[in-house]
């Protein structure tokens, strides 16, 4: 007979209190480990700064106003690049998912191009778009576009055939089916795909800010790398992680507010 358990419950809820404790430990244990290891002095602080040193770097950057500027610039670039990618990929993915013909027309080329590393496009982007914000944004755009398109496309697969047929029998035309049935149905999946791929955009922030950026979190990290200011690298990474977490929660909120009908 199956034994009773709380921790090893499968696909059942666990008590709220346990869940919160575990989530707290999820953050606390790594920080504690970091604190212990870095304070033993076994690893020189050049390679692994202590939490205190990183906190110091964080405060230093904050006091000088650099961090705020970095955050503002990087946020702007990532959000701009990501939004552009979303604006293109959502209709594109929906069309590809809806019409097998458009899928046949675009899938092979996208299948090839999506494997090409975004950093390879830097010289071409500089060439055509200069050194301003546009090439940086475009790099993030390119690096996010294809993943998002494919994930949106996959979502359309889950629209029940009956829903489409019902719409036809109610007198719906193809365009109406697309805009008034398929699109609202996959909206939760679109939001979820965007949530996942926002991280892909952030992963490009360093590469994109290699393009003649004078501020930004990615640039801060790469300069810190050059001069081996490990504390600043860590501070930059942690700030990016926390911003990411915040954006993630915002997307979840958006999903909850805009798609009440969808189960989480």
């Amino acid at each position, binding site marked *: 007979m199956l034994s009773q358990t709380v921790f090893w419950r499968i696909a059942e809820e666990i008590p709220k209190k346990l869940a919160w404790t575990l989530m707290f430990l999820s953050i606390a244990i790594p920080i504690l480990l970091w604190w212990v290891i870095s304070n033993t002095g076994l690893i020189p602080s050049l390679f692994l700064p202590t939490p205190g040193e990183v906190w110091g770097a964080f405060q230093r950057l904050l006091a000088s106003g650099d961090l705020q500027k970095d955050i503002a610039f990087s946020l702007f670039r990532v959000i701009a690049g990501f939004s552009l990618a979303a604006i293109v990929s959502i209709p594109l993915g929906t069309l590809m998912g809806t019409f097998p013909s458009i899928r046949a027309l675009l899938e092979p080329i996208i299948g090839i191009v999506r494997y090409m590393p975004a950093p390879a496009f830097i010289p071409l982007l*500089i060439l*055509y*778009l200069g050194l*301003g914000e546009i090439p940086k944004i475009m790099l993030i755009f390119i690096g996010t576009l294809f993943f998002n398109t494919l994930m949106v496309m996959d979502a359309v697969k889950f629209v029940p055939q009956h829903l489409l047929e019902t719409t036809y029998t109610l007198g719906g035309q193809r365009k109406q089916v697309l805009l008034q049935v398929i699109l609202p149905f996959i909206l939760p999946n679109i939001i979820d795909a965007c949530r996942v791929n926002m991280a892909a955009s952030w992963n490009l922030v360093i590469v994109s800010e290699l*393009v003649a*950026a*004078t501020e930004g979190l990615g640039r801060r990290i790469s300069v810190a790398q*050059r001069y081996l200011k490990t504390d600043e690298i860590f501070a930059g990474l942690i700030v990016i992680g926390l911003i990411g977490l915040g954006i993630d929660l915002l997307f979840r909120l958006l999903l909850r507010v805009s798609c009440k009908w969808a189960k989480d």
Partner: protein
Amino acid sequence: TPNQQTSTPQNPNTSVKTALISVGFSAWPGWFPWQVSQEEKLFETNKVNVDLKWFDGYLDSINALRAGQLNANTQTLNDTISSVAAGSDQVIVLINDNSTGNDKIIVREGINSIADLKGKKVAVEEGTVDHFLLLLGLQKAGLTQADIQFQPLETGAASAAFVAGQVDAVGVFAPFTTKALSRSGSKELFSSKDFPGAIPDHLVVTRKLINERPQDVQALINTWFATLDFIKASPDKAYEIMAKRAGVSVAEYKAYNSGTKIFSIEDNLQAFSPGKDMKSLSYAAEKISKFLVEAGLTKQAPNLQKVFDDRFVKAYAAKQKS
């Protein structure tokens, strides 16, 4: 798409009305003076409208010039030759400095001669002056790159790898030299001081700029020498500006000074004239070019005839005399 055109000149009070020139520069003691030119408004004084663009990555500035996103850039001779070899039309109009020790090959304890490098791991950023310097050193000892374990790494990463004990030697330029030397027992094996004239740094402009707006190029050169005068006149202020740009203290900055020989107008005139040793830029260029081809770094030797243009330094010298 040069967005520079649309941006407003820094100082609307001056009567500078010429189109904006974008000039790139990056971290090198011979190029930090441009920051002084900017902050002391020496560009305006010399009636040139400059958008001075700082690059954290030197490589990016080279790419930007090739891509036509800059009108001028500060770069080393070997990079200029590579660019020209790849088909970019660039002209050297001013020599800023020669490296006289700021480029170093630094080794760990136990390596005492170039010959000792044989079979050792040496990290250096591929295609940079330090790569060039390393190869020059190896050549002198009768070795080639094949005799060492070559580790191509970005300069910052290279010095970090050296400090972490991952490589036996590293080729870096200031200010990364300081960091590399922080590894205990490490020392300089040789440096650019041992190869005078091999590593000149200069201002390169596009052929288009020379053809269309020679007077602006002239103004740039005038600004450079005016800047050198300013540094001489008020060194404290100038060093403060340069140290800040470099991200180091004034004391540290001054330490780099000996490793770079800033070129006066006389040095420029001499370097631009033909000769049979490395003091002559055209002679050095021939050597470097040959070297790059032999190392397989460029496909064919470029035509070096049109790479040098000494008329602007000459004009400045003439004006000084008069």
